[in-house]
Every structure is written in C-alpha cells, then in structure tokens.
C-alpha cells in the first residue's frame, strides 16, 4: 500500500488568475523518503497543505494509507512540519509539545513520555522549560520537527525543514530523518537544497507551475541541481 496517493489534484486560490495545481498526481510508497522539488511558486507548499487538510475547494483525490480525505481521522497518520516555524514562541518547548500532543488526541502519560524522548532526540532536553522565543533558529527548527513527530505518524511531510539553520543542526536533522525512515516512517521532503534531497531521498518528484514534470528514482540522477535546472529552466522566478 502506498503511504500517500494523490490523484488529479487541481486547485486555484481565490481571486487568482492561474491554477496553483493542475491535475497533479503522485504516489509515495510506504517506507520511502521521497523528494518534492520545484522552484518558488511551483505549488509544493500548496500540495502539502491540501494533503494535511488545510485547504478545501480542490478537485481530485488524496488518500493516506488508503483513507480518503477529507476523512480527518487520516490526519493522525501524518506528521507535518511546515516551512515557517509554527510554534508558540511564548510557550516553552514542553508546553508546545504538550499542546500539539493534546490536539493529536494523545493521553496525558503518552504526551509526557513522548515529549521526554523527543526532546532528547532533537537535543533540546536542557532547554525544555525555556520559552521558544529564546531559542536559536536551529533549535526552533528541531522543535518544529519534534512537534510533527509527537503522535508517532507513519507519514512525515517536511516543508523545507533545514532552511536557515547551521550545519550542526542540519546534520542533526538529517540523522534524525534517516533514523526515523530506518524505523519504517515514510517521508515526503520538500526542499530547495539539492544536496539534501540527493543525500536523503531515494526518489524525486519535480513540480513546476502547478504540474508534475518528473517523477522517478534518484539513482538515475548524477547531478540533481543540473537536472533540476534542465527541467525547470534558468529563468528567475519572482512568484
């Protein structure tokens, strides 16, 4: 069974003249790390928002481990770390994780145990009681990832998880993702860092102007950046 099946998704934002997504279809097999690449404005984040139940008004179908959206119970199978640091900065790391754990329907004991484990895993145990506003960019990114992992999802959607972080935090995040995948978690990774995609992912989906323009294994691509520019062109994107 595929972790994620997206079939013929078409979507246009209110008052927009062009479609953000046009007849997009892709599948992510269970247990894989798949890259979702594309220039700015290609539609990657919109696609992720549709999959995570944030957007309505699209046509097409989304299935998560066989459960069709908008059945919101499917959302419990997904962990989502959005590109902006989506955390409450005046709350501590522990309070943030506790809150998101409760939203995922976890019980008190589960939240306590998993919060402890995750804070250790992302290297934030010593800062668990500090307000997130006092964290560095790298620490916030790691906590952003931890919040997505709290309810032990089977499919992890990551939207540029290493943007703006130092090499130490970036490598820590890479190691964490590889460990999670080795433990059976499926990951869909949206990124602009080609080296990151090539290092972590076994397959790649390339989208541009709301359409899938390539879908295939990473193994056949020797230089991902060159391949990306060949497929999407060298012209600047302003949107």
């Amino acid at each position, binding site marked *: 069974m595929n972790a994620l099946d997206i079939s013929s998704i078409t979507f246009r934002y209110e008052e927009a003249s062009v479609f953000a997504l046009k007849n997009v279809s892709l599948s992510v097999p269970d247990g894989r790390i798949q890259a979702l690449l594309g220039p700015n404005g290609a539609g990657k984040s919109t696609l992720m*928002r549709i999959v*995570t*139940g*944030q*957007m309505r008004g699209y046509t097409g179908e989304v299935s998560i481990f066989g459960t069709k959206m908008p059945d*919101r*119970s499917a*959302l*419990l199978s*997904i962990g*989502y770390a*959005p590109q*902006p*640091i*989506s*955390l*409450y*900065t*005046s*709350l501590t790391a522990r*309070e943030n994780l*506790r*809150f*998101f754990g*409760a*939203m*995922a*329907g976890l019980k008190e004991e589960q939240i306590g145990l998993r919060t402890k484990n995750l804070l250790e895993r992302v290297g934030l145990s010593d800062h668990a009681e500090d*307000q997130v506003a006092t964290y560095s960019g790298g620490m916030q990114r790691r906590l952003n990832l931890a*919040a997505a992992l709290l309810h032990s999802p089977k499919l992890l959607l990551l939207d540029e998880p290493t943007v703006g972080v130092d090499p130490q935090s970036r490598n820590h995040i890479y190691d964490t993702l590889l460990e999670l995948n080795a433990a059976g978690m499926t990951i869909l990774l949206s990124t602009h860092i080609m080296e990151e995609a090539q290092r972590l992912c076994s397959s790649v989906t390339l989208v541009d102007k709301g359409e899938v323009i390539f879908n295939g294994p990473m193994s056949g691509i020797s230089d991902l950046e060159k391949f990306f520019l060949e497929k999407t062109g060298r012209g600047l994107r302003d949107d």
Partner: protein
Amino acid sequence: MINQLKELIKKEMLILLRDKQTVLLLFLMPVALIFFLSLAMEGVWADKLTGRKIQLVIQNESESPKANLLAEKIRTNKLIEEVQRPAGMNDDKIFAEGRAHAIITIPKGFEDSEKPVEMYFDPVIDAGYKIAARSLIISLTVEVVMGIDNLEMVVADLVTEKKKPNKEFPTPLQQNVPAYAIFAMFFIAIPMSVGFLKEKKDGTLQRLFTYPVNTNLVILGKIVPYYIINVFQFILMMLVGVYVMSHIISFSFNLGEHRWHMVPVTIVVAAATTGYGVLVAAFAKTTEQASTLAATGAILMAVFGGIMMPHILMPLMMKKLAMISPMYWAHQAYLDIFLRDASFGDILPRLIILTVFAGICFYIAGRRVKWI
C-alpha cells in the same frame, strides 16, 4: 475533546498572561483610570452636585446692630463657611489663590438703608453656584431688614420643596468603577484580535488544523479564555471600588439592593466584548490594523457611551447618540442596579440589546473570518 478544549484554553491563557503589556492594559489601566478620575471628579461632584459649602469672606464695615445681625446670620448659615481674609491680601488675590468664592461687604450706612450689601464673586465661579449664593445672601438681608426671623418658614405655605433621595446621579465611584471596567473589558479586543492574526501569520493556526480538531472547539478555545479574563476584570474593578477607593474618596459606593443582578449583566457584557473582539479579528488584516481598530473603536464607544463623560451631564442630542454605543447599555445596566434598585425585568431590555450586539458581531465574524 474536553482535553483538547482544556489545552486550547490553557494555551491561550498562558500566551495572554505572559504578555506583560497586555496584563497592564487589561488590569492596571482601568484601576489607574478609576483611581485618578474618581479623585478628579470628587471635587466637581462636591461643588456641583452635592452642595459644597459656599466659602465667603465677610467684611462688616458698619458694626451696627443690624449689620452685626446680618453678619451673624451669614456666618451661621449651614450652607456657608466663613473664610478669614489673610492680612494684607486683596480681593483679587483671594480669588486667584482659590481661598473664597465671594466677598460680602456690609458697608457703613447699611443700617440706614443708605448703602446696599455688596457681593463680589470670583470671576470664574460656576453660574449656578453664583445664583445660589446670591439668592441666599438676598434672603438673609431681607430677613434682617424686614425683621423676619426665618424667611423660609414665612414662605413655607407659598413655596415648598419636595424631597426624595437622588436616584439618578451616580457618585464618582458608581460612575467610574463600572465605566472603566466596561472600557477595559472592551479592550480585550486588542489581545484577542492580535493573538488570532499572529497565530495566522506564524502558521500555528494552520498547523492546528493539520490535527483532527473540530473547528467549533478551536473557536471556543479562542473565546472562552477572554471571556474568563473579562469576568475577572470586572470582579477586580469592583473590589478596587468597594474596598479601596471608597476609603480614599469621600463618596460611598452603594451597590443597590439587587447587587446580584451584576452577575447576568457581566455575563452579557463579556459576550458583547468578546463578540467585538472576534469582529475586529475578522476584519483586520494585520496585527497593527487589529490593535488600532480595536482601540479606536473602544475609545469611540466610550466617548459616546457615557463612560468618559457621565451620560446625565450630556446635552440631549449626545444622550440620544449615546444609544449607538454598546457601552452605554452596559453602563446603564450597572447604574440601574446601583442607583435604581432595578429588578431583573428592568435591566432585561438592556441585556437583550447587548446580546443582540454580541450575536451580530459573532454572526458577521463567522461569515467573514478566514481561519487559514
């Protein structure tokens, strides 16, 4: 589901209470306003409304028996307080330093009706106050000249005053405590709308919807904490009014016979204020817009609604205009309880108007708000 709601409320409370500026705005600002404005109003109330004694310098230049009798009648009148002229101080300086309201001179020749009693008033004295003082001196002079012991008793069959306790005019505390409690309660719209827009901007609200959380639960989680804060604001202001301010200024804070009617009024006022908050959140596009819109709206409602200027002192046109402000209905409901011992039936129309206001706010916001 209950646990989710509990956590949503807890999260909102923690964010709110960790923002020191918001806490100052919601709790310290109204306390300070009540404190300073009640002190400021104390003097005005004493002068204009409760008849503070008229302070007079009495100059008896005649020293004749008639003049002495008049001077004594003025001196011993219960509405008059005699002030001694400081040595060498002229009339203008006495007024400039606020030592007296008027100077009464009984000249030589008064006893033979050759010269009249002279009254010299402080030029900035209130006109009504001046008329009252003038009438009093005239009455006392007539008594002495005509040889009447008590003019008021003589004319009692012709003119009499019907008295009843003043149930219309609030004391400074009865005016200011509910007024600035309501004012601060409406200021909840600032943290409420700013918090909502900040969550949208930060992406935390969007993230919330990636979990299987009911939208109605999220709405409740956004409203209930502010509702609770509103109720606490009112309780705090009342405690300040009853237990602190009533010991500081000379006016009492009578809560009326049906003080428990404050409970339904506060519940409805809090619904109106949170409704206003969600309305601002639904219309504002940025946090800056939200805070400006919420504050400006609250200040305008206060200006019109008899919060900053007591409704009873407003000219007729402004009194009618006041009715467009929900703060007017809220304030009048509290004044009904404090001044008029209003029954629940008496305050019900005001509660219905506030409920309709809240309902309209929630309805418009519900149709307009974009959660993501």
